């Protein structure tokens, strides 16, 4: 098995890194992104593409379970590191590579893994479902009307999952609905946010947004004791994540690099000019504007009604406007403009800025196509790493489309 050994060693020079961020894990994520970039490690979109799972910040009980499920989905060779702050990152990455290269241990790990629901009764699906035979009873119901609620099949199928149920559609049909939970761990996703959606096809019919876990820390971005460039860096970070989802990885890369140089030293004269250049480049891109225009429109007065302040309100427009607003405000912050409130806005009527953003999510994503909904959420980018936010967010009522 010397060949395996050599291939693994060779491949371990460029492992794919999956970052999962828990509220409060911002500094760890930033450090991990920075070091991964310096080493040329690509980012994984999900566990199937990942070699190294890096958990940034301290997971709550619920998030710890989600981390385990994510870890279970990573194919071997795999290694997992837990990052609490920025300092331990280089060592942790070295440890991750060493673990990947340890072929005997990886073999052992791979051999010892059991499929999910291994004890489940997977043979029962073969039971006789005579009533699914479509020619009896003849003619009294058509296929689309044929229910299956009476078959009690939830336990019969492999994996212990259920068959999808049906619900009325927005154009009067009754077709299957799929319940999908977006988050807590998706690429470029606000840490700790969960949006429960009901999908028909790829369109979001219903949505609930809430925070999954309270952080005991306050928001790292809004920490007044931090370095001066932090506000600019926060906006660049949000912009980078949106650009990544919008499929423009080159611009996202530039935004992340600039974010890190701002955090290193915000007073470097060239940096502000570079941010301005990035802003101009993003503004000029027709393909980006054409893809984001009219998506998730949030006029300023509507934003005020919803208690939203900060860049999302000042942008007074759609996803594209909010992206440009971040870049403009990042540039302004670097030029000494003192922003009002936190990076996400101010507290309005007892609700923090991020709470207001989370509450607005269902209204904006209902009726949208799934990937469009992802972009809208990224363009709001609430920060749940705030002890005031997560505790108090209950499931908001379903917003009606219209």
């Amino acid at each position, binding site marked *: 098995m010397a060949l*395996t050994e050599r*291939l*693994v060693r*060779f*491949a371990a*020079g*460029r*492992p*794919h890194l999956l970052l999962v961020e828990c509220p409060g894990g911002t500094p760890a994520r930033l450090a991990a992104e920075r070091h991964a*970039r310096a080493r*040329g490690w690509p980012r994984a*979109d*999900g566990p*199937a*593409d990942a*070699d190294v799972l890096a958990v940034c910040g301290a997971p709550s009980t619920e998030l710890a379970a989600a981390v385990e499920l994510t870890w279970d*989905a990573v*194919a*071997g*060779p795999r290694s997992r590191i837990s990052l609490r702050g920025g300092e331990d990152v280089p060592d942790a990455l070295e440890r991750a590579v060493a673990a990947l290269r340890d072929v005997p241990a990886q073999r052992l790990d*791979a051999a010892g893994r059991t*499929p*999910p*629901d291994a004890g489940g009764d997977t043979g029962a699906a073969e039971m006789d479902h005579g009533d699914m035979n479509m020619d009896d009873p003849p003619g009294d119901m058509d296929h689309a009307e044929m229910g299956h609620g009476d078959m009690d099949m939830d336990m019969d*199928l*492999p*994996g212990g*999952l259920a068959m999808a149920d049906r619900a009325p559609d927005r154009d009067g049909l009754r077709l299957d609905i*799929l319940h*999908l939970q977006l988050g807590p761990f*998706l*690429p*470029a996703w606000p840490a700790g946010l969960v949006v429960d959606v009901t*999908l028909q*096809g*790829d369109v979001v019919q219903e949505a609930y947004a809430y925070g999954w876990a309270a952080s005991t820390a306050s928001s790292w971005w809004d920490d007044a004791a931090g370095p001066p460039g932090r506000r600019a860096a926060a906006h660049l970070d949000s912009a980078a994540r949106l*650009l*990544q*989802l*919008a*499929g*423009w*990885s*080159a*611009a996202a*890369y530039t935004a992340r690099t600039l974010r890190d140089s701002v955090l290193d030293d915000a007073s470097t004269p060239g940096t502000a000019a570079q941010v301005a250049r990035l802003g101009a480049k993003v503004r000029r*891109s027709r*393909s*980006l504007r*054409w*893809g*984001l225009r009219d998506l998730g429109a949030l006029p300023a007065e509507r934003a005020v009604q919803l208690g939203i302040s900060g860049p999302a309100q000042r942008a007074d427009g759609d996803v594209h406007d909010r992206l440009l607003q971040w870049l403009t405000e990042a540039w302004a912050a670097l030029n000494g403009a003192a922003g009002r409130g936190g990076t996400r806005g101010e507290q309005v009527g007892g609700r923090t800025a991020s709470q207001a953003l989370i509450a607005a999510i269902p209204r904006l994503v209902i009726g949208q*196509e*799934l*990937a*469009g909904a*992802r*972009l809208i959420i990224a363009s709001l980018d609430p920060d749940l790493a705030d002890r005031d936010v997560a505790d108090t967010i209950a499931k908001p009522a379903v917003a009606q489309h219209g």
Partner: protein
Amino acid sequence: MVEQAPAWAAPLALGLLLALCVAAATFDAALAAGRGLAGALRVPWQEAARLVVQQRRTTVANDPLLWRTGGVSLLVVAALMVAVVPWGDWTLLDSAVGVVWFNAMDVLLWAAVWITGWGANSAWPLVGAHRFLAQALSYELLLMFALISPALGAGSLRLADVQAEQAGLWFVVTMPVAFVVFCVCVLAFSLWGPFAAPIGADLGGGVLAESSGVDRLLVLLGRYALLVAGAAFAVPLFLGGGEGPLLPAVLWSVVKTVLVLGLLVACRRRFALLRPERFAELAWVVGIPLVLLQILVVSLLVLGRS
């Protein structure tokens, strides 16, 4: 004149296809993050080694037959597209309807990508699969019209004739719209750059979200192979085939293929995603009238000549 190559040349053609895949992957890695060519040389091989070693994944209650067939099909389709391409004076399949052959092969991708997404029995790949079909419904007619323009110009569906017709004046000069549309459609069926929506990060990897190991490697390799096949096909259609000074014709074909391929690969860094729900209207309402005008111009040229 173009001759049918003997069957033993098939492995050579496949070797050329795979070599160009590696070149494309290297170029893409070099463009990413400005790590330079030296740093990029290892990248495709590291990826391949990683995915060969990596454990494969399956999901509960999946459809392995469709899932794996779909994953393998991309590479197979790309190879079959390359079969009709004349490399200088040689081709593996000198078909009288070579243009239609390419079209039929590209349609196989509809099924291939869809079943790859469906087979995983997972929400994100399923949405990705449907996004691909929506994308395909938008680009397919454009591709057909872009393929027809050079065939019309040459009065033949045989690639050898199309290539020969361009001695002196390449079709890219008289049919620039068709050439651009063709390149766009190659990006679209290769799931590349602005058309990577079915495997986009906004869907957590989409069609590829549950694939790892060799299964994933074959899809990724297949994407590059489709880009290569598209680039290789553009050469006899629009760029005069093997025509050029000094070098032998077959080398000119390869050189031109490499240039087109580099252009296609670079698009990934340049553009944001064109999401299918936006692209549909653009393709139908702007794209189709535009290529039809191109065809009108070409047919007037043909009438003027005869």
